[in-house]
């Protein structure tokens, strides 16, 4: 949890975000969505698909600047925080080896120093470093995408349903790897996380705090602090907390159940 008074890594206040709809006219995707992410804190955005979670993440990533509201990184230098990002797909460059893929996101001064190789090794990809993405398995591609995200030593890690469309066992393994890696980031340079998911177990496993979003236009319906230390919650604790959430009386939880 962030120290009280320390400035948050991210504060976001989207008053309104509209999209041109295919039928002509405009659709409001997000209205009055505000939250912050503290230093080293992990926040999950949980909500029904199509509620504007990915749009929110794109706004935070600086990929979409056309919204009304404010986006600020109070704890970061003028250029903004170092961002790591794991998208719904690995988004590796197919024409570069795994190692080059990781290396290319590093600032030129930090290339060729073994950082890329080191992160690939930590993800169990030492053998595959010289191979092209399409020559390795989907799971390995995902791990390379994780290695890339950690290699930039992010102050804020953005995860957009990072393990969606994987089979359950593989997703669980990668989640554990992610949780372990997050747990090992140094205390003086903690990595904050903004996770978008529609998998409640994933949110409980990886987050300190879960924000429940409404269907579009998205806003925060309620917020839940996950008990226990992130990364140390066992299968049974996760499942128990999930049950507890689903049993709660508020309509938002009944809707997910």
């Amino acid at each position, binding site marked *: 949890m962030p120290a009280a008074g320390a400035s948050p890594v991210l504060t976001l206040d989207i008053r309104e975000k509209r999209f041109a709809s295919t039928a002509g006219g405009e659709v409001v995707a997000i209205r009055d969505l505000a939250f912050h992410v503290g230093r080293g804190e992990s926040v999950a955005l949980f909500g029904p698909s199509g509620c504007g979670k990915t749009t929110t993440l794109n706004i935070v990533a600086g990929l979409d600047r056309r919204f009304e509201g404010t986006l600020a990184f109070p704890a970061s230098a003028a250029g903004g925080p170092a*961002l790591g*990002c794991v998208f719904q797909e690995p*988004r590796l460059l*197919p024409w*570069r080896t795994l190692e080059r893929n990781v290396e290319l996101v590093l600032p030129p001064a930090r290339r060729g120093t073994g950082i890329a190789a080191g992160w690939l090794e930590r993800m169990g990809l030492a053998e595959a470093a010289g191979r*092209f993405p399409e020559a390795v398995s989907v799971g390995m591609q995902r791990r390379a995408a994780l290695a890339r995200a950690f290699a930039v030593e992010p102050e804020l890690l953005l995860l957009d349903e990072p393990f969606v469309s994987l089979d359950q066992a593989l997703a669980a393994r990668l989640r554990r790897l992610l949780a372990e890696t997050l747990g090992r980031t140094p205390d003086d340079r903690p990595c904050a996380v903004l996770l978008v998911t529609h998998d409640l177990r994933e949110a409980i496993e990886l987050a300190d705090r879960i924000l429940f979003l409404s269907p579009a236009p998205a806003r925060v319906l309620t917020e839940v602090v996950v008990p226990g230390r992130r990364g140390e919650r066992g299968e049974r604790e996760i499942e128990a907390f999930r049950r507890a959430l689903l049993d709660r009386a508020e309509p938002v939880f009944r809707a997910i159940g």
Partner: protein
Amino acid sequence: MAARRKGAAGRYGLGILLLLGLWAVAAQLADSPTLPGPAAVAAAIVSESAGGQLPYHLGMTLWRVAAAFLLALSIGTAIGVVMGRSRPLDDLLGPWLLLTLNVPALVVIILAYVWMGLTEAAAITAVSINKIPNVVVTVRQGALAADEKLFDMARVYRMGRYETLRHVLIPQLQPYLLAASRTGLSLIWKIVLVVELLGRSDGVGFQMHLFFQLFDITRLLAYTLAFVAVAQLIEMAVLVPVETHAGRWRVARSDA
């Protein structure tokens, strides 16, 4: 794999032999100076090469092809990328493209000679201008088809403009650039000959003009065949290796 390639090479050779045989028979039947046989043409190639004539003119043509090709490819790629990545510029340059695509090559050549004089620069400019719009159309298509998700990735990770160009955009354009190179070379070859015929005093095109006036079909065919052979050599020695190298990550996929 190797056996299949060997079979393909065999059939390719057979195709050439068939063509030569047909030609020899036709020449025999025609028995006319307007259709010399393969042997006569081969003899002409040898004698013209020995005299240094053929290598000299072929060399002049080759350098014009190379200059016009590089010019057209680099300018055409730049414009094509800009048009493919920017909607407003695409609209703005659209009419230019339409105009240059539809002006006949001959008109461009004549205008270049009239405006710039009968110079080397005019010749190369004329050929380039004829080719640039084709490159633009092909590369624009590639730039339009480029994967936005990879550009988003590059932006989140703050890859610079140059790096994004080099590692994200150009590799995606590569098949389109190769296509533009292939069609480009064959088109430029042909236009260079016209340019030489109209306004230069050397090169294969100039020689063609001469042979036409002398009605020397044997040497005309000798130059043509030498020319075709060189074009094929460039395809095999330059384009195919470049394609293989650029596509090595795809080869990796089929191995997996």
